[in-house]
C-alpha cells in the first residue's frame, strides 16, 4: 500500500520530466514493434517449411514453383537451415518447445517422428489417407511414420542402408556375393591377399548417428535387438550384441577394415571405396550415382545388396528417409495437407527424383520405366527396401542412440571392454526408459 501512496507523490515528476517521457516513448516503440511481425504474414496463406540448405535446392527448382502454380492461394516459404540434420532437428525442437513455432509443415527424418509425436507437436494424419492410398508407399516407410497406432508422417523420400560390393573383383576371384558375416570376412581377406584391394570392408565407425544406423544392421544380422519399442526391453547386454561388436572389431583386427574406420563418416568411407581401395562398403543409396560418375575409377563395377547376416537370420537394412508432417500449432492445416498430398504424389515425386536422384517412397516409382532408365539399380533397391528395419521407434530415441554411440565407440576403439561397455550402455538405457514403466 505504501508503495502506491508514494507513487502518487512522485507522480508530478512522472508527468514533467523529459527522462520519463523518453522511457515512455521507448516502451511504446517497443510495443509497436512487437506487434508488427504477426501482422506481416497474412493473405495469401504462407506455409513455412524448414530444411537443410542443400536439400532446399531441388525443392526450389521445381516442386514449390509447380505447387504454387496449381494452388494460387498458398505460398510455400522455404527456410534454409544449417547443413547438419541434427541442428535442423534442434531448430524444429526449440521452435516447438517455445510454443510459437513458425513452421507449418515439418520435414522429418524417420527417427524424429516418435519424439515429435510423443511431445504432441504433430497433427494426427490417420484419417487423411485411406488404406489403399497408403499401400502405394513402402510399408516400412509408412510404419516409420506411425506412433502408437496413429499416422503422423507421410513419407516423401526413402533411404535405406546398402551393402556395396565390387562385382568385378568378386567375379574375377570367383566369389558369389556374400550372404553371411563370415562370407564377408572370408571374401575380403581373399581379395586382400590377392592384392586386388588394400582393404576389404569399410563402414562408418565415428561416434555419431551413422554408427547407430550401421550397428542396427549388424545387430539384426546376429539376431539381436537394441530396444523393443513395445516392451521397452533393452537388449544391449545380450550375447547377440557382443557378437555384433566382436564382428566389427574383427574387421579391424584382421586388417580387413582400416584402423581409421572408427573415425569415419559416410563421406570418408565413400571416398575410400570410390578410389578403388576397398571391396565392400556399407552406406546409403546416394553413393551409387557418385561411384558411377564418368570420372569414377569404379564406374560400372559395383553391385548392391542388403546387409549380410549370420546363417540363422536374414539381413536387415537400416531405414532412413524423410517425410512430411503437419505441426499441431499451424493455423492452416488444410492447406498444409494439400501441400503434403502434392509433394508425396506420384507425379511430383517422379519429377523430384528425376532431378535430384533421391530414393522414392512410392513403390511404383522404383520400377517406373522413366526412372529405371536413369537409375537402373532402383528395382534392386526395392528388394532391399522391403527388408528394411527401423531404429527403435521410441520417443527417447535420441538419448538412447547417444548412449549406444558413446559406449559402442568406446568398445570399438578398445577404451572399454565390450562386455562392460554394453552392460553400462544397457543400464543407462534402462534408467532412461524406466520412468514410464515404474511410475504412473
Amino acid at each position, binding site marked *: 500500500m505504501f508503495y502506491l501512496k508514494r507513487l502518487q507523490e512522485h507522480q508530478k515528476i512522472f508527468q514533467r520530466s523529459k527522462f*520519463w517521457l523518453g522511457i515512455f516513448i521507448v516502451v511504446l516503440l517497443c510495443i509497436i514493434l512487437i506487434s508488427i511481425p504477426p501482422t506481416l504474414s497474412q493473405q495469401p496463406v504462407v506455409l513455412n517449411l524448414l530444411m537443410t540448405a542443400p536439400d532446399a535446392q531441388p525443392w526450389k527448382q521445381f516442386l514449390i514453383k509447380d505447387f504454387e502454380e496449381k494452388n494460387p492461394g498458398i505460398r510455400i516459404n522455404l*527456410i534454409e537451415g544449417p547443413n547438419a540434420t541434427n541442428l535442423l532437428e534442434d531448430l524444429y525442437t526449440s521452435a516447438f518447445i517455445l510454443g510459437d513455432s513458425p513452421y507449418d509443415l515439418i520435414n522429418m527424418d524417420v527417427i524424429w517422428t516418435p519424439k515429435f509425436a510423443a511431445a504432441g507437436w504433430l497433427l494426427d494424419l490417420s484419417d487423411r489417407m485411406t488404406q489403399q492410398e497408403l499401400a502405394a508407399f513402402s510399408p516400412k516407410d509408412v510404419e516409420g511414420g506411425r506412433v502408437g497406432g496413429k499416422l503422423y508422417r507421410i513419407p516423401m523420400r526413402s533411404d535405406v542402408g546398402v551393402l556395396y560390393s565390387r562385382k568385378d573383383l568378386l567375379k574375377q576371384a570367383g566369389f558369389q556375393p556374400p550372404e553371411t558375416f563370415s562370407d564377408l570376412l572370408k571374401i575380403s581377406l581373399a581379395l586382400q591377399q590377392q592384392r586386388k584391394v588394400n582393404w576389404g570392408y569399410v563402414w562408418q565407425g565415428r561416434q555419431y548417428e551413422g554408427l547407430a544406423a550401421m550397428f542396427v544392421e549388424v545387430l539384426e544380422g546376429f539376431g539381436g535387438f537394441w530396444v523393443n519399442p513395445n516392451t521397452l526391453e533393452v537388449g544391449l547386454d545380450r550375447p547377440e550384441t557382443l557378437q555384433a561388436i566382436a564382428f566389427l572389431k574383427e574387421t579391424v583386427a584382421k586388417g580387413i577394415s582400416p584402423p581409421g574406420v572408427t573415425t569415419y563418416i559416410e563421406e570418408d568411407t565413400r571416398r575410400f571405396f570410390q578410389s578403388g581401395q576397398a571391396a565392400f562398403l556399407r552406406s546409403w543409396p546416394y553413393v551409387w550415382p557418385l561411384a558411377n560418375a564418368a570420372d569414377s575409377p569404379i564406374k560400372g563395377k559395383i553391385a548392391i545388396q542388403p546387409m549380410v547376416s549370420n546363417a540363422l537370420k536374414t539381413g536387415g537394412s537400416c531405414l532412413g528417409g524423410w517425410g512430411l508432417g503437419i505441426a499441431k500449432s499451424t493455423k492452416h492445416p488444410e492447406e498444409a495437407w494439400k501441400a503434403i498430398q502434392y509433394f508425396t504424389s506420384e507425379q511430383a515425386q517422379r519429377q523430384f527424383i528425376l532431378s535430384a536422384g533421391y530414393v522414392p517412397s512410392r513403390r511404383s516409382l522404383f520400377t517406373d520405366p522413366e526412372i529405371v532408365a536413369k537409375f537402373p539399380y532402383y528395382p534392386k533397391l526395392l528388394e532391399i527396401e522391403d527388408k528394411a528395419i527401423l531404429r527403435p521407434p521410441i520417443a527417447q530415441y535420441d538419448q538412447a542412440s547417444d548412449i549406444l554411440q558413446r559406449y559402442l565407440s568406446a568398445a570399438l576403439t578398445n577404451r572399454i571392454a565390450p562386455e562392460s561397455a554394453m552392460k553400462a550402455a544397457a543400464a543407462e538405457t534402462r534408467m532412461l526408459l524406466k520412468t514410464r514403466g515404474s511410475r504412473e
Partner: protein
Amino acid sequence: MTVIPSGNLQTTTPAKNYGTNILRWGAIAFVVIFCLAPVMWQVLTSFKVNQDIAAVPTIYFPGRITLNHYIELFNRRPFWRYIFNSAFVSIVSTAFSLALGAPAAYALARLRPWGGRVILAGILIVTLFPGILLFLGLLEIIQRLHLGNNYLSLIIPYTAINLPLTILVLRSFFEQLPKDLEDAARVDGYNTLQMLVQILLPMTIPALVTTGILTFIFAWNEFIFALTFITREEMKTIPVGAAQLGGASGFEIPYGPIAAATIVGTLPLVVLVLFFQRKIIQGLSAGAVKG
C-alpha cells in the same frame, strides 16, 4: 620484462635500458598481434574469392578482392533484420537496466535500507550465474506467457542480467558524489526521486555512459537466450543468425559469408571499443573490484 609500472626509475645502465626497451616493444608487439590477428584473418577471409579461401597453401593477402560474401549475406538472409533486432534489443534493455538500476544503486549507496548488505551480496553472487542455469526456468515462463519470438523475451532477461553490473558501477559512482549536494537539494525541496533524476543523474552521465556501453556489449553478444527464445528468422539477433548460416551444398561450409557475418556483427562493437576504451576499462574495474 620490466615490472616497474611507472617506468620512471632510471637506475639501469644505458645498455641494459636498450635491452629492456627491445623486450618491452617485443611484448607490446606480441599483445597487438595476439589480440588482432584472428580478427584480421576473418577480415581478410571475408574479402577473398572462394578459390582463394579454399587455396592450399593458404593465401594470406588476396590479389582479388570481392564484396560478394557481404552481398550474399544480405541477399540470402534477412541480415538487416538481425542487425536491427540486435540493436533494438540491446538499446532497450540497456535503457531499462539503467532506469531500474540507477534508483536501486542510489538506494544502496545512500539510503541505507535494512538488509542492504545482504542485498548487495546477493547482487554480487547473481553476477556469477551463467545463463545455462536460468534458461530452463525462463523458458517455462515464456511458454506460459506466450512471449516466444517476442522482443520482450530477450529484453527482460537482458535487463535483469545487466542489472547487477549497473547497480554495482553506479553505486560506486554515487558514493563518490559529495553528500552536501544531496543535502542542498533536499533543503531546496527536492524529494528523493526528483533529486535523483534532476540533480544526480545529470552529474553521473559519465557513469551512465560507462555502464550503458558495458550493458550494450553484453546484450549484443548474448547467445543462449537468443538461441532459445527466438526461432523466427525475422526476430533473430546477429550472433544466432550468423551461427546458423548454412551453405549451399552439404560439403561446403560457407566460410566467406560466415567471415563476412562475423565482421558485420562485430563492427559496431569495434567502433564502441575504439571510442570508449577508457570508459570500458573504468567500468569493468569499478563493477568487479569495488563490489
